């Protein structure tokens, strides 16, 4: 896999499709596993890390998961390439910043990744667009079973899969859904969502961890408890109660904006459009913030039939049916491709922050003015 080939498009799971996609951007399940008969990574020498890496790499690379897979060495990758993988959610920031022999196996469609020597020896994850956790669980279980035929995992009948950190113990599962919740934020109800999540033993984080949620209105909601509950029960809880409830809250907030504060809504969408179409310098934080409002406008038109003046204007700009110029996928593409590492890799060389802001603004301007230029 050439990173230059993936850097100019979005991942399949980020194309704005799938069930409940107006609010649930993507579903992700990861499993943490460690090899029996080896120390955890904090106590491993580089020689032992290399041995673990080789064992797992050869086991996984020999699998037939129905999509071509490639291996990327993280310790040998440039920091720009490592950041690109973080921006695409293919590796964690922890993995990018780690030490010693480590790598990642990525499927061509970027729906499966296996981080080797992250916090645990192995962390496999399956991603999918929209709300598709049951599918992700089925897929990851199959892959886990295949790997397990080739290696022996550290497992205790009492504590389950043994992980470096006791918080991942048991099933080793972390279920995570990425949610777009701009209306809850605009109506000052996002704190309620945080509290409800905490009461249900769930964790809320921003798109790229702490501090990024305010910019993009994207939140990752995940389970905390991995011991003493079945994998399928956690998935069922997410799909039957957690996700529908959050979707209902966000939809209620969107309806409330429409009926009680249409001017607030239109102001946000109009300002976002005007700035994105005209700005010459734009930071990635500002871009995330403004693109979030465009995503809201497009989805409110498509899924709720909203037609306030600003939403109508945005819809006209987007175009319709076959000739549609701007879709949620376009917005997500602008969102991902203007992140710092994507921007620089696609440009072909490192850029200073100010130059990145100029280039980012240019890319967004050109994408959003396409339709008006051609009409």
């Amino acid at each position, binding site marked *: 896999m050439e990173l230059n080939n993936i850097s100019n498009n979005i991942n399949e799971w980020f194309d704005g499709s799938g069930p409940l996609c107006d609010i649930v951007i993507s579903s992700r399940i990861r499993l943490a596993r460690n090899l029996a008969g080896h120390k*955890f990574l904090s106590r491993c020498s580089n020689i032992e890390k290399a041995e673990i890496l080789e064992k797992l790499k050869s086991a996984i690379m020999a699998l037939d998961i129905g999509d071509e897979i490639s291996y990327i060495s993280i310790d040998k990758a440039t920091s720009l390439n490592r950041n690109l993988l973080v921006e695409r959610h293919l590796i964690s920031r922890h993995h990018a910043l780690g030490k010693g022999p480590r790598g990642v196996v990525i499927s061509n469609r970027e729906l499966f990744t296996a981080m080797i020597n992250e916090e645990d020896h192995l962390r496999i994850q399956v991603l999918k667009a929209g709300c598709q956790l049951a599918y992700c669980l089925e897929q990851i279980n199959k892959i886990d079973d295949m790997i*397990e035929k080739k290696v022996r995992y550290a*497992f*205790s009948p*009492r504590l389950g899969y043994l992980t470096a950190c006791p918080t991942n113990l*048991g099933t080793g599962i972390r279920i995570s859904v990425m949610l777009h919740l701009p209306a809850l934020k605009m109506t000052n109800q996002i704190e309620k969502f945080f509290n409800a999540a905490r009461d249900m033993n769930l964790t809320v984080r921003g798109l790229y961890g702490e501090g990024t949620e305010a910019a993009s209105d994207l939140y990752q909601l995940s389970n*905390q408890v991995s011991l*003493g*509950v079945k994998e399928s029960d956690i998935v069922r809880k997410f799909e039957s109660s957690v996700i529908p409830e959050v979707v209902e809250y966000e939809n209620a907030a969107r309806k409330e904006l429409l009926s009680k504060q249409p001017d607030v809504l239109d102001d946000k969408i109009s300002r976002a459009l005007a700035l994105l179409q005209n700005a010459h310098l734009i930071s990635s934080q500002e871009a995330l913030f403004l693109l979030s409002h465009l995503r809201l406008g497009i989805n409110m038109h498509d899924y709720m039939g909203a037609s306030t003046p600003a939403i109508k204007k945005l819809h006209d700009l987007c175009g319709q049916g076959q000739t549609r110029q701007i879709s949620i996928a376009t917005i997500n593409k602008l969102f991902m491709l203007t992140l710092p590492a994507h921007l620089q890799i696609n440009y072909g060389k490192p850029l200073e922050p100010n130059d990145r802001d100029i280039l980012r603004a240019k890319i967004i301007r050109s994408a959003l003015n396409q339709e008006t230029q051609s009409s």
Partner: protein
Amino acid sequence: MQCQICNKNEATIHLTEISSGTRTEMHLCENCAAEQNITVKSHIPINELLSGLLSVQPTDEEIAGPTLEHLTCPNCGFTLAQFRKEGVLGCPYDYEVFESVLQPLIEKAHDGKKSHCGKIPASTPIDAKKQMEIMSLRRQLDDAVRSEDYELAAVLRDKINQNEKQQTN
């Protein structure tokens, strides 16, 4: 001060009596006090005295603390101090070595849950696998009893018995 009765021994018991507004003091040795049928009672009940004493003594945990603190995993050389610093363990065996310290942390992190329930590797020996099935059935039985679903509880109880029989066979 000498005993007011024998004038020999050291007075260790000091009595103050207030009667009809008149205050009298007596200073006696233990022998003379006993002869006068004056029994000395502790001001503090014995259990309170003991617990008071214990509270100033190091507790079991405090005694165990430093020992555990210096406990080293024979497999990876890991210590609790390192766990506190790094937040991750050194090897799978640490879960046994530091069980007494880790168990409360595990329960806290997992909403009070104590044991695994879910996927089991296919390579796990049959006995362990069966054992886990039984553990899982027991958990379900507890839930059924708690929610007063006695029909389900009876079915689960039979299943457990059947499984346990198979185990012993």
